[in-house]
């Protein structure tokens, strides 16, 4: 049984192994020198460095390319001209508009693909790994997908909103979400009007965004939907349609008043289930996979996290810092016990090994084959994760993706040659005093597998490396990296 304590570990016990675990969970992992740098900072400073990331300069990161007007609604005057669509003129215009619309949609899909690749590239390049990891958490928590929203600019705008509040205040984030055009569109709140409520947003706001299943009744959904009437979208922006808003008295979760959407959110934030539910989500993202329901140990830790979250009025930094310093977080049962999400696997491989830039379209395709296409979570419930990431098909994709990052070779490419690798991994061994097969394997295995690699496996890898002609070379280390990233152990962190 893992300890359930959230007390910090003794500062003196924070070594490179712990620093590596911290970097892989609070970020995506990193090369030996980054691990050494964190270890050198000491526990508290290392955690502060990762969590208080605002001071780290990111001006060098690439900006997304977009045209915010690709998808445009029909103007009123055009609509009028179309009239009932019966006259000959209107027919011709309608046909023209239809073709134009199809054209725009095709362009928008290309733009979405570009934004998807931009985000993936940013995750790999950012000096603030926790920021992107939190954006990924919120993307999966307030999940909407472009298949339904059908507007890449709205999806990008949402991504920016998640980043703005990533490590800030969860309450403010929810306030932003009920005014987020992508979410409003995704959950049909545009058609939530006085007298004709649409309950979709109200339901998900309680079930999936704040409280979890069973913490509310059907009537709370109906009343909550009334509070959210008139929260709509005009073009690319939030718009409050006053005429569509139901200003009457509502009763939500036992409270009565002339509530609007913000009041509704405040009521939800005041419920005891909310900090618990968010802590459960944080736990699943940073600490460990939860199957059907939390174990007793997990439950105890989540409760303790929830207390920190509510004592700090939903500020996220305190709970994150408490967690990243805690005895539970560094427990041997926790370290190396989580299935890597596709993003963790791909971004982590690129960051730990500092692989050269590969084709971002190929990487985005791999993400989708591994089941985590960015901006396309399968449903409003987000990604399920955990063991569900791994099956006989995705495992090969995961292995092949790592091989592609290391070598540039795509599956099926038979004309591959070693001249096109464009990557020399020997820098990983820069601080290694003795370059014997044994110590090389130890370093790489620690870096990529952590301490949970069985001794037998290390022996086997050492034997393999020792049998390579020419000793420790670019070629033999490349082979090692390909092998290690194709090991079952590499799927966990």
């Amino acid at each position, binding site marked *: 049984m893992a300890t359930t304590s959230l007390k910090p570990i003794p500062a003196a016990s924070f070594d490179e192994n712990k620093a590596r675990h911290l970097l892989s969970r609070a970020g995506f992992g990193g090369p030996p020198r980054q691990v050494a740098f964190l270890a050198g900072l000491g526990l508290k400073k290392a955690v502060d460095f990762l969590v208080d990331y605002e001071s780290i300069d990111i001006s060098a990161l690439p900006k997304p390319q977009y045209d915010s007007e690709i998808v445009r609604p029909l103007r009123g005057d055009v609509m009028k001209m179309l009239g009932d669509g019966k006259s000959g003129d209107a027919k011709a215009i309608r046909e023209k508009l239809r073709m134009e619309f199809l054209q725009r949609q095709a362009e928008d899909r290309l733009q979405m693909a570009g934004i998807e690749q931009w985000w993936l590239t940013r995750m790999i390049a950012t000096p603030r790994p926790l920021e992107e990891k939190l954006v990924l958490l919120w993307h999966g928590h307030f999940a909407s997908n472009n298949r*339904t929203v059908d507007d890449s600019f709205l999806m990008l705008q949402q991504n920016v909103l998640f980043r703005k509040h990533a490590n800030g205040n969860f309450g403010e984030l929810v306030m932003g979400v009920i005014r987020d055009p992508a979410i409003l569109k995704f959950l049909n709140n545009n058609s939530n009007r006085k007298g004709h409520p649409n309950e979709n947003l109200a339901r998900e706001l309680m079930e999936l965004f704040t409280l979890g299943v069973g913490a509310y009744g059907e009537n709370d959904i109906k009343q909550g939907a009334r509070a959210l009437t008139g929260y709509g979208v005009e073009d690319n922006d939030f718009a409050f349609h006053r005429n569509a808003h139901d200003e009457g008295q509502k009763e939500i979760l036992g409270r009565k008043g002339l509530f609007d959407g913000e009041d509704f959110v405040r009521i939800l934030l005041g419920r005891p289930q909310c900090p618990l539910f968010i802590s459960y989500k944080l736990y699943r993202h940073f600490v460990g996979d939860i199957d059907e329901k939390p174990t007793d140990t997990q439950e105890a830790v989540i409760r303790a996290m929830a207390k920190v979250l509510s004592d700090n009025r939903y500020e996220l930094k305190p709970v994150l810092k408490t967690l990243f310093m805690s005895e539970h977080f560094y427990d041997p049962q926790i370290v190396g016990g989580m299935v890597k999400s596709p993003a963790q696997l791909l971004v982590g491989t690129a960051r730990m090994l500092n692989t050269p830039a590969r084709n971002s379209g190929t990487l985005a395709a791999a993400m989708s084959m591994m089941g985590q296409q960015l901006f396309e979570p399968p449903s409003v419930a987000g990604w399920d994760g955990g*063991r569900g990431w791994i*099956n006989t098909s995705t495992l*090969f994709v995961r292995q092949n993706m790592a091989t592609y990052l290391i070598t540039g070779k795509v599956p*099926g490419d038979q004309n591959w040659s070693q001249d096109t690798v464009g990557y020399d991994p020997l820098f990983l061994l820069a601080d290694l005093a003795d370059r014997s097969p044994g110590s090389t394997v130890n370093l790489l295995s620690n870096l990529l597998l952590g301490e949970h690699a069985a001794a037998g496996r290390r022996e086997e890898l050492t034997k393999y490396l020792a049998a390579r002609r020419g000793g420790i070379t670019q070629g033999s280390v490349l082979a090692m990296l*390909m092998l290690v990233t*194709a090991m*079952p152990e590499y799927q966990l962190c």
Partner: protein
Amino acid sequence: MTDKPAFTRREFIGNGAMIVSTMATVPLFLERSAWALTPATGSAVKDRPGVPGERILVVVQMTGGNDGINTVVPFGWREYYKARPGIGIAEKDVLKLDSNAGLGLNPEMGDLKAMMDAGLALGVLGVGYPNPNRSHFSSMDIWHTADPTGRSGKGFGWIGRTLDEMRSQSKGKIDATACVCVGNESPLAANGRQVKPVTFQDANLFRWSGGDLHASLAKEYEAINRAGVVGDVDPNSPMAFVMRTALDAQIASQKIRAAVNKEPVTKFGEGKLASQLRMVAAMIRAELPTRVYYVSLGGFDTHAGQPNTHARNLREFSSAIRSFYAELKAIGAQSRVLTLAFSEFGRRVEQNASNGTDHGTAGPLFLFGEKVRATKTGLLGEQPSLAADRLDQGDLIYNTDFRSIYAAVLQDWMKVDVKEVLGAPFRAASVIKT
């Protein structure tokens, strides 16, 4: 007026409970290693009680929204030619099925007509669901999850749930290759909470690509990934789960690649669907313990210049299915395989100005196999009215809920509980001989 790209499904996610055998560290494959290595003579998997023979379901997805009205052509209906002056199919060309009802097949579907005549094919008319969604993705999701509300699916599909149900019937035992999909991404339909599909576009790429680089690498990789659970790993830990999956993957890859690289007994036609079905037949022949195969044919989103594209698609579709069944007959598996072909929606009754059709609603669905109910005309159900005042925003009104077809497949073919899979006790349409 929405158009989206051809359907590519990013499926996923599941609560990843393990696909494990009762002895946690022995992958299921190894329990049958005897047959995994030598071609079996009988059925590889023991029959389940109540299921005669080893029954297999093949799902063919016609992606993009097949124009049902030009597939089963209402040549006897005046409204048809009025609504489709540029793309209507002349009565003299239609392959007549039911002269009383004025219905027949697209002239390119001679192979399908031959199967109907032989009692191996059935077209069900007017299949759809309430409040039809005209978006490719949403409608496809509805068909995949069997959930028109979009609320209860939550990322799991009807086939995945069927296999989950079979898994629990057999006390947690199910083969890692229970469901095989051909394509880049696993279809949502195949995603179960526990049971996950095996998916590949090209079986020869269903393996680790790093082994191409050096023989020594391939050998070492095999040794590591085939080792199963090593060290003193807790059999319930995620580590043991990944190690087991790695071994399963090696064996599945080897079996599948060995199977599909065998030449078929008969001759298959050209085209993507034919080559996918050729692979499926090869896997059936190799006695893979697979229960469901999933293949797809794209190109049905015919907004412009429909006649040529649609004709080509239907020809490819019909000939691929016919050669598939010829091959099945040659390998003695004809009675074991039921095929269901569906599309996410039909198309608008009235053609558009580009000699194409826009997204619509209900359409015909096809079933193939010896156990399919034979009718005199090869058709079942009623063609929905084409009269302007009997349409829903210019689209056909469905009269058979697709879930009643699923229910028949589940109840009368796969022998699993309809309510467990579909979440509600749907009445099975009478499409399968019981």
